[in-house]
């Protein structure tokens, strides 16, 4: 390396330094620490300001205990169950995008209305839905009762709690970023393809099935990957604000399990093992994306 190159390197790293140093301290170092913790008996009840028992290396014990624990598999099942709503949500996003694409006047207002649930989805909205699902005087059950149904107790019911969360998730997901991605995808479908289809006398349905759907395939693939990966990581906020993971663990997902183990009981080592299981699941989705997704190259 000559003097000029060294000078360039110094300038390059100098501009990088503020971010990289913070990144090393609060991302890379924690990742390494987390791997380490997953193999220890670290527990806030043993290691705290009053009591400083020595940290013990326990090998794979956290993982073996996790995989042999029936609750883990039940919570994994809950996580997968909640993901059953994804196909409906994605189809809904596509439907919304199809309705909202094009240059018709006034579509922007509808787009905003569809997007707001996703944009605002947070603790306030989850607490709102807890009230909407309230079996005693909540508007959803008042409506169902008025129609003559015998409505379920939703979040209080072991079997209905998950469907309730899925209904809410659908509401936030239809107009979400997925809809925006589909809208961007639709804008890129070449108009000639539709012209050719028109000349062949294709029906609207045929045009959708033979032109739009295949053209959108890369977008759909990307949305599925992101959604599934988000599904593995998700469920914590809803469970924490609406159900505390209940009733009887019915809405405990892997991420809520991590929280409960780490911060309710304080078993940080065990919870770190849970974190790495979740990471592995999400990472598999990233690998699938790298392998099969159309890569975006910008320069």
């Amino acid at each position, binding site marked *: 390396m000559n003097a000029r190159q060294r000078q360039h390197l110094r300038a390059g790293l100098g501009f990088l330094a503020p971010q990289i140093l913070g990144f090393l*301290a*609060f991302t890379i170092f924690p*990742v390494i620490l987390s791997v380490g913790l997953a193999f220890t008996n670290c527990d806030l009840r043993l290691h705290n300001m009053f009591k400083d028992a020595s940290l013990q290396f326990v090998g794979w014990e956290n993982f073996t205990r996790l995989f042999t624990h029936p609750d883990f598999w039940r919570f994994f099942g809950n996580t997968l169950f909640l993901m059953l709503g994804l196909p409906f949500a994605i189809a809904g996003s596509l439907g919304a995008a199809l*309705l909202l694409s094009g240059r018709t006047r006034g579509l922007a207002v509808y787009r905003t209305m569809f997007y707001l649930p996703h944009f605002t989805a*947070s603790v*306030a909205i989850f607490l709102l839905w807890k009230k909407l699902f309230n079996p005693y005087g909540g508007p959803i059950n008042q409506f169902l009762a008025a129609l003559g149904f015998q409505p379920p107790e939703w979040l209080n019911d072991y079997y209905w709690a998950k469907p309730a969360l899925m209904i809410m998730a659908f509401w936030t997901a239809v107009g979400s970023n997925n809809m925006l991605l589909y809208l961007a995808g639709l804008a890129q479908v070449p108009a000639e393809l539709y012209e050719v289809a028109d000349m062949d006398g294709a029906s609207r349905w045929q045009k959708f099935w033979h032109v739009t759907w295949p053209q959108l395939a890369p977008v759909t693939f990307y949305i599925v990957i992101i959604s599934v990966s988000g599904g593995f990581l998700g469920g914590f906020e809803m469970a924490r604000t609406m159900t505390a993971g209940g009733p009887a663990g019915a809405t405990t997902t892997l991420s809520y399990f991590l929280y409960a183990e780490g911060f309710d009981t304080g078993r940080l080592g065990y919870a770190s093992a849970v974190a790495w299981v979740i990471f592995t699941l999400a990472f598999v989705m990233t690998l699938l994306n790298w392998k099969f*997704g159309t890569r975006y190259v910008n320069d």
Partner: protein
Amino acid sequence: MSTTSRRIGKHLLLAALSVTMALPFVWMVLTSLKPLAEVASPSWLPSRLQWSNYADVFRLVPFARFYWNSLLIAGWVTFLQVFTSALAAYSFSRLRWPGRDKVFLLYLGTTMIPALVLIIPNYQIMIRLGLVDSYLGLVLPSAFTAVGTFLLRQYMLTIPTSVDEAAEMDGASKWQIFWEIILPLSRSGLVTLAILVFMANYHSFFWPLILLKSVDKYTLPIGLLYFDSTRGQSTHLLMAAATMSVAPLILLFVLLQKQIVQGIRLHHPRG
């Protein structure tokens, strides 16, 4: 069917769907104005508008404080992220140094690390640093990420390199080129990133939930949860608090819709 009637039909359908999507918000606002006794009544409309519910929220919990804390925390994270990302993006897009693109790819690869994995070790770090229950502890772990650098690099790559070369010939230093030329030219990218980061941190929940202990440091999401656990039976007040925490978001979205939508597309380049 003629195109006009088809268009009208489409508008009717969209209007009906939009109203359905908005119903939860409508119920939230109407309930926030009801007296407690009417909360469970089948009529959505309050018999009279009880505006005092909003004042009651401020009386029962330090709600203004929650607002301010959210603004402060999200504001600091946004400032740090945008500034350090701009510096890093400048280095990755416009400075030529050996190994640059390899380092960038490696750095980009780290975006797949989910925040969930970092929470437990970062909590340990905060205990060691004595930053549990502090603003600094809330800000630091969210302030330095690769995503912003990636987004701004995309922006800076669209600025022609002749701009830098001309400035260099005039004897400008790298810092001057960054500060006086590249940064102003990337303004819309900076604004977009700032909005995305601010929104994400306004919503931030898991990290403040475990880090914060004292009520006067609560951000809005944690404050709302606290309100729910202490006064959750007062549905009308809870809905007033919820309305007040959602309202700024709706306002922000209506005002900055264009930048937000553009930012989301840059964030998911595959679309």
